[in-house]
């Protein structure tokens, strides 16, 4: 089937099998391997991308369902050489270890902060509940999102995340 999908601002037209998963389209057709596959059931969230403003698990969406949509992946969140505040937060606050869940975690966090600029710790935890991390115990991920939120609000990010400098 013919699909036309805008990914990170660039429009792509492709002929795909109806059963091709969106995550495989991103990874194998477009070569955007930042989006990862960690499970087959939509639980781990490593494949999270933002489709028309909503974070979705791209292992549970067919490519043909994304026809005509705008897709953002981890490769598209930075502003050129300038990291997105969420990326910066994960770096500053040691929000990642193995890094495999990180692209999906970043996309869920970006989407969270776009709909709620000043989330509480509980709201952050609820916002990333669909993304599993096996390395961090989520502790520093929460700090990373707090850091990013403060930065996006124009506040001192290091104050928002008390443990950064501890």
């Amino acid at each position, binding site marked *: 089937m013919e699909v036309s999908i805008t990914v990170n601002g660039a429009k792509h037209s492709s002929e795909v*099998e109806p*059963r091709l998963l969106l995550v495989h389209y991103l*990874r194998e057709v477009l070569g*955007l*391997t*930042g*989006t*990862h*596959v*960690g*499970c*087959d*059931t939509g*639980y*781990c969230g*490593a494949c999270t991308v933002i489709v028309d403003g909503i974070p979705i698990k791209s292992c549970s969406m067919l490519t043909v369902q994304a026809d005509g949509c705008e897709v953002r*992946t*981890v*490769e598209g969140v*930075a502003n050129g050489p300038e*990291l997105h505040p969420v*990326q910066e937060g*994960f*770096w*500053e606050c*040691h929000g*990642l*270890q*193995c*890094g*495999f*869940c*990180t*692209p999906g975690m*970043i996309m869920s966090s970006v989407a969270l902060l776009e709909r709620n600029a000043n989330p509480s*710790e*509980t709201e*952050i*935890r*609820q916002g*990333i*509940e*669909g*993304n*599993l*991390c*096996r*390395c*961090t*115990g*989520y*502790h*520093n*991920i*929460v700090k990373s999102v707090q850091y990013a939120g403060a930065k996006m609000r124009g506040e001192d990010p290091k104050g928002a995340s008390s443990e950064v*400098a*501890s």
Partner: protein
Amino acid sequence: MTSTSVMGGIVRRKEDPSLIQGKGAYVDDVKRTGELAAVFVRSPFAAATITSIDIEAAKAAPGVHAVYTADDVRHLGPNPAQVAVGTLRPLLADGAVKHVGEAVAMVVAENRYLAQDAADLVFVDYEPGEVVVDLKDAFADKVKVHGDASNILLTWHGHGWWEGVIDLPDPSPGIQEAKERDDTVTVSLEMVNQRLLPTAIEPRAVLADWNSGYGSVELWSSSQIPHAVAGAVGVTFGIPSNKVRVVAPEVGGGFGVKLNVYPDEILVCFASKELGRPVRWTETRREAGFASTQGRGWVGTATITGTADGKILGYELEAICDMGAYSHNFTVAVPLLGLFIAGGQYNFPTSYALHCVVTNTQTTDAYRGAGRPEAAYYLERIVDHFAREIGMDPADVRKANYWKPEDFPVQTAIGLTMDSGDYEKNLDALLDRVGYEDLKAKRDAARAEGRLLGLGLSTYVEVCGFGPSALAGLGFSWGAYGLPTAFNGSGVVRVQPDGTCTVTIGTGPSGQGHETTWAQIVSDGLGIAMDNIEVHHGDSVDLPMGIGTFGSRSIAVDGTATFEATARVRKKAAIIAGHLLEAAPEDIQFADGRAHVAGSPDRAVEWGQIAESAYQPHTLPEGVEGGLESSVVFSPPNATWPFGSHMALVEVDPETGDVDLLEYWATDDCGNVINPMIVDGQLHGGIAQGIAQALYEEAIYDDMGNLLTSSMANYTLPVSTSLPLFSLDRTVTPTDVNPLGVKGVGEAGTIGSAQTIVNAVVDAVAHLGVRHIDMPLRPKRVWQAIQDAKE
């Protein structure tokens, strides 16, 4: 040291800019031209004879290049294992299957979709046999897994575990004598330490490319032990290890599940050799329950005998340990690691018997802590139970039995030597920080209002940093993979002609931040900026001989090798700089990317000038060889023994049994710390995995050997809303086993945490009559325990 010291400081990770932008290359991101994809056909039965396999329809399916069965790969022998006690796994099931999900056939096709289509066309006839899953049934040999052989592979005894090398008297008669005294109390609990799925978020993945011209093969594998895999591939195919290059690129979590040699690693090499094309296999999550090793799985009885004033006179543990059906890398050695810390941080007689038993389930092997979380669980649960039964504070009972600082080095109950420890100081640091007395008062006040608050304590000692060369005789080597090397560390430090630095190390990290920590060691030693140091790991050819990353060993062993190599480079550079500056080498200091004469910061040369001279030997002083690098192999004289104290505050809902984890504190001691941010991160993750075992996770098999929890939908992993923020602190008791004074921290959090939670939950409901609840403490179990206690 230098004035630019970054040791002990928080340094942002060098790894992260790549990973946060989606640039990290994991195995599934590495592409080779002409790749084919493999899919496995797996057994639906836990015990069966294979009467026929029909592959014709699959072979004729679109895009299929080959379908392989045992007939094709039998000549390669079984999957090699380092500690080869028990039955080794055939690469593909050969006439029989021993667990659900065992691979029976491999289909190779143009892509994974077509390979899966064809796999569905492989028809296998099975004659189902009797299945044994229950550990006690297996121990009693009610059904035998492998022919007429007993299911009991061996029993590790505390006093006889290394016969002929460490001979110890049997402590049992002395403990028996203590039990018969009038002034002693004996308490006992049977407890399950349940089976777990390690569940790295990146499933395992392999990609092989066999080059028939060179007779060599390249294998990308999501592995913690690339050198061992290279050796195993070489041994299997009869080619030397230098013809095999195994690359572990970015590895998306390990936790022990990637500390193995797997049939799929061998089989993709075989298929690539046969077909002349690169061949890839990527595990699906559901497959991970069948194709990757699992952890824990003990049922045991712990017993303590002591006096009413808290003095413990004997500790006994007898446990049946589930090996699964086949033996892999370290399968039967995992309980041995538990035995290594049998008596924990305590000075009392210890008697251990760990029975290694096979069942019709997937193989078990190392999972974060590997034997030590189990050992710490039984010990710290029964010590807590003993304290309750004699009416003493659990902290006081522990203190009454600790080894004292002046006892070190301590000869343990099983004949090993613990390097250093100050357990009471560590526990007091935790108790002071949490305000122990106030917390107990808060708990008691809440209880008076009918709320079920519980306070749980665990302390622990663990053993890591493997390891001493002598342990090679026990199988702590890669000898079975044709690489008879002890568990050394290795590091190469090279200053490039432009004055930047390349470091290559023998580790196989999966998120531990080695590129950053190792760069800190080198930057501190040479005064070269972090940004000018690149660290490479996870490649069996390009890197020095390495053992990999597991057992919290990398920093204590490979880190030390790099530290020593750095010192040697500095020494040579001082000679060259001294020559250039017309000063004595001993007067040369390194800082800020330069070497200068002590006391005269202006008399200086840049690292680039030193390196330029090093690579132009005619400019060097007499007798100094060209080049500026050093390669060091470090063999530690002993393992290291980190320790710590953990505490949890929980609230149990009396109506539902739901456990709310309110607070978690830990005071750990891993010796000196190079990067506190990374060390704390390791503890966060380790603690989360211990909490997860206590509250959520369980690999459940039914009586027919079906794994009921093979997807994330029914294997309950902790999510972000399951856990609190953790409150960490540390004491620092350096080791003298290595010059860095570091001990290792990868597993400490897991070893200290599961029993902390269980002790807290039991504390919350003990006044109702509950004495123990088996993990995971899901609401139904806790609620049922409360109901049972009422009756």
